């Protein structure tokens, strides 16, 4: 993982997960009373964003483990729930919002798993379907060499029928999923992009073919799959390259096993722009035709998004007509112009996704 420093919150020193990670990591340990000591240390580095990727802080999640996805009212949100297992990532994507989301960005891993499972138990008892993922504030699988949490989560989800777990990743670290009793309640999903974007903008991530090979392995172990084309980048020749990625997906996996494919284009808070300029001077991704969106984030000019989305939706439809395609954080106008309908005509986006999850993963509806 490239972690060279381990900070441990003195309150979680005796926690079994702490002991396990400490043994597996084998790097110098500093015990701290206050998280500010960790942040101060990271901030003293020349490149705190990078330093944060090599510094792990084991602590307790003092807030809720399960949070609603932070959507905004201006755009349609999928109603996803975040399982907040930790923050930040060891990979280094130029566009990553986490670079500016945490102050400073630090690899944190929450070890109070007992509390996590208490919260999950209440979700499992819910009468409604819940789609829960660990890949919002971190990559779901970067912790595989350190922690056994995924094992416990997959097992936990397998024993109920009210929720699905989505493990979202850019890695190929799926080896430990092989023999888990998942009962199809865990969806393994990959972030997809063109070879060019992966090569130029997604440092230290797996190549496209490797991600797809990992997806094929998961499919062979019976896991349902999902793919996320987010963030899509607009550049000369991008349409042809995205078309190629869609083709490749279905050369590796069967459409019947894909629960959903999401599409979203690059968007960023204005505060991320100087970070990208500073850390990735060769990157041109911030120089597209962006406007300030209704949520204050910079987004590609709407007609450009629609043009790309229409092409993608048509391409996916042709390759896999039954697969549910949805947009991440777009309005009805974009839905109608790109897909020919708005989510409200089909009961709303959360319902569309719940139904697909129920169908592919065997959940109890209502």
């Amino acid at each position, binding site marked *: 993982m490239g972690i060279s420093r381990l900070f441990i919150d003195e309150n979680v020193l005796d926690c079994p997960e702490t002991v396990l990670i400490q043994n597996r990591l084998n790097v110098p340990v500093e015990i701290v009373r206050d998280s500010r000591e960790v942040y101060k240390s990271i901030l003293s580095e020349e490149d705190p964003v990078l330093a944060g990727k090599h510094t792990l802080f084991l602590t307790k999640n003092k807030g809720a483990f399960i949070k609603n996805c932070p959507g905004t009212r201006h755009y349609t949100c999928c109603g996803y729930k975040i399982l907040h297992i930790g923050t930040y990532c060891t990979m280094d994507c130029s566009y990553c919002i986490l670079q500016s989301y945490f102050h400073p960005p630090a690899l944190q891993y929450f070890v109070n798993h007992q509390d996590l499972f208490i919260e999950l138990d209440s979700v499992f008892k819910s009468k409604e379907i819940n789609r829960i993922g660990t890949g919002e504030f971190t990559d779901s699988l970067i912790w595989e060499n350190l922690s056994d949490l995924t094992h416990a989560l997959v097992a936990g989800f397998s024993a109920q029928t009210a929720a699905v777990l989505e493990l979202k990743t850019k890695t190929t670290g799926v080896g430990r999923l092989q023999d888990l009793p998942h009962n199809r309640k865990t969806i393994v999903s990959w972030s997809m992009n063109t070879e060019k974007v992966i090569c130029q903008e997604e440092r230290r991530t797996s190549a496209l073919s490797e991600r797809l090979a990992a997806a094929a392995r998961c499919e062979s172990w019976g896991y349902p799959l999902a793919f996320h084309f987010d963030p899509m980048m607009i550049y000369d020749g991008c349409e042809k390259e995205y078309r190629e990625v869609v083709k490749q997906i279905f050369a590796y996996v069967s459409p019947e096993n894909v629960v959903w494919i999401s599409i979203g284009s690059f968007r960023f808070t204005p505060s991320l722009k100087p970070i990208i300029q500073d850390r990735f001077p060769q990157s041109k991704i911030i120089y597209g035709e962006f406007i*300030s969106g209704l949520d204050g984030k910079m987004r590609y000019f709407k*007609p450009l998004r629609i043009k790309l989305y229409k092409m993608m939706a048509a391409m996916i439809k042709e390759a896999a007509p039954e697969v549910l395609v949805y947009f991440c954080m777009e309005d009805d106008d974009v839905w109608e112009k790109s897909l020919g309908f708005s989510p409200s005509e089909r009961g709303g986006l959360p319902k569309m996704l719940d139904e697909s999850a129920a169908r592919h993963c065997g959940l109890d509806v209502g």
Partner: protein
Amino acid sequence: MDFNLEKIDLALIDLSISTFRITTHTGINDLKASMADVGLLVPPLIVKGAGLKYTVISGFRRLSAAVDLGYRYIEARVLDPGTPMINRAKFAIAENSFQRQLNVIEQSRSVQLLSSFFSSEKKFTRAAADLFLPANPSIRQKLLRLSTLPECLQNSVLNKTVSFIVSLELEKYEPTDIIRVSGLFDMLKPSLSKQREIVTLLSEISLIENIAISDIVEEEMIQNIMTNDAIDRSQKMEKIRIGLKQRRFPEITRAEQKFKSSIKALKLDGNTRLLPPKSFEGTTYFLNFSFRNADELKKCQVMMNKIIKNPAIHDILNS
């Protein structure tokens, strides 16, 4: 300050060494007139250099005026040759800053001169404050950066055709780029916000198209506007700004132009305005009527009906 008042042969004073030069003023006509009228009031401050010649600490303009007036000798305050360099620097700064408000380039020269003697921020801050220089570390850093910029850009900052802030944004570019941009601003004298916009547009176009900023400025589009005598400075600035914006945001510009031509086709009267969603991102349009009485309100109603029947409104709403 230990010095002797001495009569010195002007030929022995080396005016080419500008280590201690703080002032940006170069004109000497006023000084010549005053010296011709009442003589030299404050003798320049000099110090004996390594050879026979004297180095100027302060009084560059007085010495130039004296040369121009045909003086052979001048009365000068001659510092002890053992005067430490830090003290010479302080004297040079004080002789200027105690007399008048230093401009930003003079401040940057002073800060640069003084900084070389201090490794401790705290000690520098104290010394700077004693000499009426900005003591704030962040301003100090900016002034230091300014002192390293090409002379043409420093001159533009001095002439207020390039703002101090924008000059620092230009720092990262090649000298040829800086010369072209400062030349452009020297001629067009844009406001700070326009300067920033132009620099951002130029730098982003340069990155997108892999082309030097200087080459963009040299292109026909900008040069034709610059040499067009039929339009004034602010019109030139606006045309250049729009041209660069079109190039940087071609699709957005096309949409704006299409909207404008649709609005034209709607033939709105002076009391009616149709506004698109901001950046065409939302879906809500705003139709604004102005009226003062019932008759005018009725006219608005007629206008409204005309708008609804005009195919141009459907082009707008369905685009």
